[in-house]
């Protein structure tokens, strides 16, 4: 039984200061799929995730969430605006993940506390509950954020470069977790990644993005040398003298 749901993109264009960061993107993330979004720097990958969560408004086109609500999406951003010096413990951070269910107010019920403990074990942070987050390494902190996501128990999981600046051991462990999430629970997982080996090894679907989509589908058909070459040809800087984009697909600026 799949617990995921489709997310559809219809001719989606997202712009910063009128320059497109994602340009005329159309496609679907099937329910329960495990998709990697790859592409060069400035290709619009993070922008796309932010548009899916609703943090950015499209300049044109739509994101169809097909019955999903905000609480059905779990999003792990690239550089969280998290104040690491804040006096909060690991356990309290993880518990935040369940907040849509436990709501406001003090105190945590037993069931949630137990689940938080289980989540910490799942990410390999047994016994870290009472540590302040400021005393953790980058890898340990990322595990804490993953544990929080576990508590969110969302149908769609969006990860923006979750393994950047993390040690190899943590990366392996968390990658296993992601794969397990997907296989056992049938969630839809979309992850922005840089390591092609990781993608080829674990992700059956891929979207190669260089502002406009280069290829979207099965990973081995997407990550071909020809496609990768086209992607690399993407001009990273904005064209200051670009004309207005005409509505036809493929005509880029």
């Amino acid at each position, binding site marked *: 039984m799949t617990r995921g749901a489709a997310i559809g993109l219809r001719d989606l264009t997202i712009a910063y200061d009128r320059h497109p960061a994602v340009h005329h993107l159309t496609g679907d993330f099937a329910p329960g799929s495990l998709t990697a979004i790859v592409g060069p720097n400035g290709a619009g990958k993070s922008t796309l995730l932010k548009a899916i969560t609703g943090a950015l408004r499209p300049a044109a086109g739509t994101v169809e969430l097909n019955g999903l609500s905000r609480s059905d999406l779990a999003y792990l*951003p690239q550089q969280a*605006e*998290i*104040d690491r010096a804040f*006096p909060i413990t690991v356990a309290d951070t993880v518990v*935040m993940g369940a*907040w849509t269910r436990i709501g*406001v107010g003090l105190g945590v019920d037993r069931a949630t506390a137990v689940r938080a403990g289980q989540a910490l074990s799942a990410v390999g942070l047994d016994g870290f509950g009472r540590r*302040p987050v400021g005393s953790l390494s980058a890898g340990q902190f990322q595990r804490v954020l993953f544990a929080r996501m576990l508590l969110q128990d969302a149908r769609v999981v969006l990860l923006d470069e979750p393994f950047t600046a993390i040690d190899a051991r943590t990366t392996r462990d968390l990658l296993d977790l992601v794969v397990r999430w997907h296989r056992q629970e049938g969630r839809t997982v979309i992850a922005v990644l840089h390591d092609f080996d990781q993608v080829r090894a674990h992700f059956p679907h891929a979207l190669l993005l260089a502002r406009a989509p280069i290829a979207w589908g099965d990973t081995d058909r997407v990550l071909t040398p020809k496609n990768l070459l086209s992607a690399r040809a993407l001009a990273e800087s904005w064209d200051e003298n670009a004309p207005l984009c005409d509505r036809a697909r493929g005509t880029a600026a």
Partner: protein
Amino acid sequence: MIAGLYQATVAPFVDYGFMRRALVACLALSIGSGPIGVLLMLRRMSLVGDALSHAVLPGAAVGFLIAGLSLWAMGLGGLVAGLAVALLSGLVSRATSLREDATFAGSYLASLALGVLIVSTHGSNIDLLHVLFGTILAIDDNALDLMGAITSVSAVALAAIYRPLILECFDPGFLRAVGGRGSLYHLVFLVLVVLNLVAGFEALGTLMAVGLMMLPALASRFWAPTVPGMMAAAAAFAFASGLIGLIASYRFGLPSGPAIVLTASAFYAASLVLGRNGGFLRRWWPRPHLAA
């Protein structure tokens, strides 16, 4: 010796009603304002208290124009002005790229100037705020009841919105992503801040109200590693400052407000140096490390 100690510390409160009331006021202030001060400090809004003490002027001035030197009217006016300034700055900081410290500065300065304008064109040369703002020795039962009510409401409200408030400080992006109405909780928090401060101004004057809200919170940072711990420490420091300050004011004839706030400052300075959680001594002379 015991008798002497009793005479010095307990007797003044037994003998004089005004001392008892002052002590109860300190207790209410500690419980109500201590936790709020901790949150203000964590949100980098520590100077808000002082700004608000100026922002209430146009409200008090309008109250004075309508009803003369009625503390009721001026207090209510001051509350409205304070709420307007706080809520406006909260909304502007959410809707634009300006941060809260900037929007607060903008709002309170405009408010203060408006207040001075109203007073200058219509008022007599009475210092309205001097009349409106009280002193702890003069607190009467009505003011005490009001403070008690506000403290209770604050404590309950804070407990109710505790989690989203913490989340908003710590990881606002997450709160936004899960659809939590961060702005709403922030605005409720601002309302609590204004309520506590304005009531504090009227009952105790600005120095005490702001001083006992912020200084104990700052001190608590150096003793407790978690927010609930800091709130408890802040309340304890605040009450202790009140108690010791009142006794000092009694024994040595020092003005009460400054005596209390200086005691709180002393606690803060001591915490800076001796605090377990990042104080100077611990930084320069750390304890020997453990085996594992």
